[in-house]
């Protein structure tokens, strides 16, 4: 049975007059990979920073491993994170950096350093110092540091930034493996939707600091199937006609005012006839096969 790892309730964050997060409420359950999707500046990093205690919300509450208030400080030792860029001492080698973080977290097992370097593909870096690492190598080392404490919740902010295509695949497989084999819960942010689609089990769509939708992979796949997109000045009447005349409620009114009908995708003429007969004026009518990108764009209310 899945346990709730993290629950945020109406988290709000303002910088001056700029509202960065608005009433963000999210629930993460154990053993799942959550993809936090949003455009640049949507509030992904800010949200992650609230969870990690790097920034304090103006209002709202965070519950971490069932604890609230000041008690969550201690629970944060069960988190691993990589926010934007990793915390590295540049004049140290990869192993020395891991050693430093191992001391900091009081981990006795010295073998874990080599194991993690092997896991992230940095076992052969030897005496090369972190300052001489490529961006991708630094990201890999950052992921290794995030995994050092064998955390129950791993928070990764754009972890594939700077990685080459092979590195992207390796990290994706690593994330899946951590979830499957160790039961870790992973919150991973990205604006690379196809990439997230290949590893996430759940999606949290954020835009302008608001959570637009939290959806499972199954639900997303269901929603990304073909549908009829109908545009009309009177959406209310359209919905009423679909329900009363075609007997379907398998449609969704989108934030932009259009309607997506998931039934009758092979009977377009029948739909147009019924709409015409019932006086529903349509300004747009098309068969769509929604991609993840389209779904995201619809969810955030942008055309």
């Amino acid at each position, binding site marked *: 049975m899945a346990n709730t790892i993290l629950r945020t309730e109406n988290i709000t964050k303002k910088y001056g007059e700029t509202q960065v997060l608005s009433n963000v409420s999210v629930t993460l359950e154990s053993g799942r990979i959550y993809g936090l999707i949003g455009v640049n500046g949507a509030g992904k990093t800010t949200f992650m*920073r609230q969870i*990690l*205690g*790097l*920034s*304090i919300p103006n209002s709202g509450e965070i519950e971490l491993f069932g604890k609230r208030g*000041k008690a969550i*400080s*201690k629970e*944060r*030792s069960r*988190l691993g*994170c990589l*926010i934007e*860029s*990793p*915390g*590295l*001492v*540049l*004049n*140290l080698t990869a192993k*020395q950096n891991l*050693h*430093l*973080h191992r*001391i*900091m*977290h*009081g981990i006795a097992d010295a073998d874990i350093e080599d194991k993690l370097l092997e896991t992230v593909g940095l076992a052969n870096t030897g005496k090369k110092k972190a300052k001489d690492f490529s961006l991708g190598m630094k990201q890999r080392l950052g992921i290794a*540091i995030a995994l050092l*404490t064998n955390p129950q919740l791993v928070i990764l902010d754009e972890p594939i930034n700077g990685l080459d295509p092979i590195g992207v695949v390796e990290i994706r497989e690593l994330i899946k493996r951590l979830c499957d084999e160790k039961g870790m819960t992973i919150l991973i942010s990205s604006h690379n939707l196809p990439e997230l689609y290949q590893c996430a089990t759940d999606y949290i769509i954020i835009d302008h600091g608001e959570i637009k939708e939290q959806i499972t992979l199954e639900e997303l796949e269901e929603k990304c199937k073909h549908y009829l997109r109908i545009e009309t000045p009177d959406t209310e009447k359209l919905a009423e006609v679909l329900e009363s005349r075609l007997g379907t409620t398998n449609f969704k009114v989108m934030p932009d005012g259009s309607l997506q009908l998931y039934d009758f995708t092979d009977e377009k003429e029948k739909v147009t006839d019924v709409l015409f007969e019932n006086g529903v004026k349509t300004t747009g009518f098309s068969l769509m096969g929604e991609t993840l990108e389209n779904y995201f764009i619809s969810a955030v209310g942008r055309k």
Partner: protein
Amino acid sequence: MINLIKADFYKIHRSAIYKVLFIILTACAVTTTLVSHFVSTGDMSFETAGTAALLSDVVMMNLASCIVAGQLICGDFENKLIQSALTGTSGRFTVVCGKMITYILLVSVMTLPYALSAIIGYVMDSGFCVPYSASVYLKILFESTTVDFSVNALLKYIVITAIMALGYASQTVFVFTLAFLVKNKSLIVTTIGFIACVFFGMTSSMIAGISDTAKTMISWTPFSPDAYNMGNDTEIGTMIKVVGIALAFIAAFTYITYLTFRKTEIK
């Protein structure tokens, strides 16, 4: 907290800047001791010796403390180690306390060249004087000519050098708070901190000269003449007072730092 301190010392052990700083302080301590000796023997005039005053512990320890604060705290903000420290410990107060302990220990280590020079000079009894005032270490050197060598006296001087290490940490402790405020700009911390340290050092003696009330007030700060004038004739009560004031200042600034850091955004 102990893990944070251990991690800091691992990082310090691998860093060149602290080693270079220690070597510079050692060179300054040796130079100061030699100047004290040569002025005493008449091989160097007081005027010439005055130019070497910049190498004395009073100036150099202020500078070293500011550099240490800048590197120890701003460095962690710069390379984002502070994020790991926060998520790996029991909160911000623990981080501040851990850093403060590391800071005091580091400043104490940095005073070692002066302390050792003074103790070795005292044991050698080669003739020393005090070419410039307000240095406990020079006073110990000078007392090698006036106080007969004994184990008790030696132990007392060792205790005095340890107290003075704490004294320097408390005098410059505001730089620690400044570093948490400024975050990742170590150069600013070092520059402003050093100027402020020199300013406080100078004005404290000026203020103390205004009236008896002002003198009493200053005597309850780490800039008290009691701290600078410790020697073989210093009473235990005075030493305890110096230690108490230093610890009180350190505790107060630890709490002030926590208050400033409690809700700080960590980039």
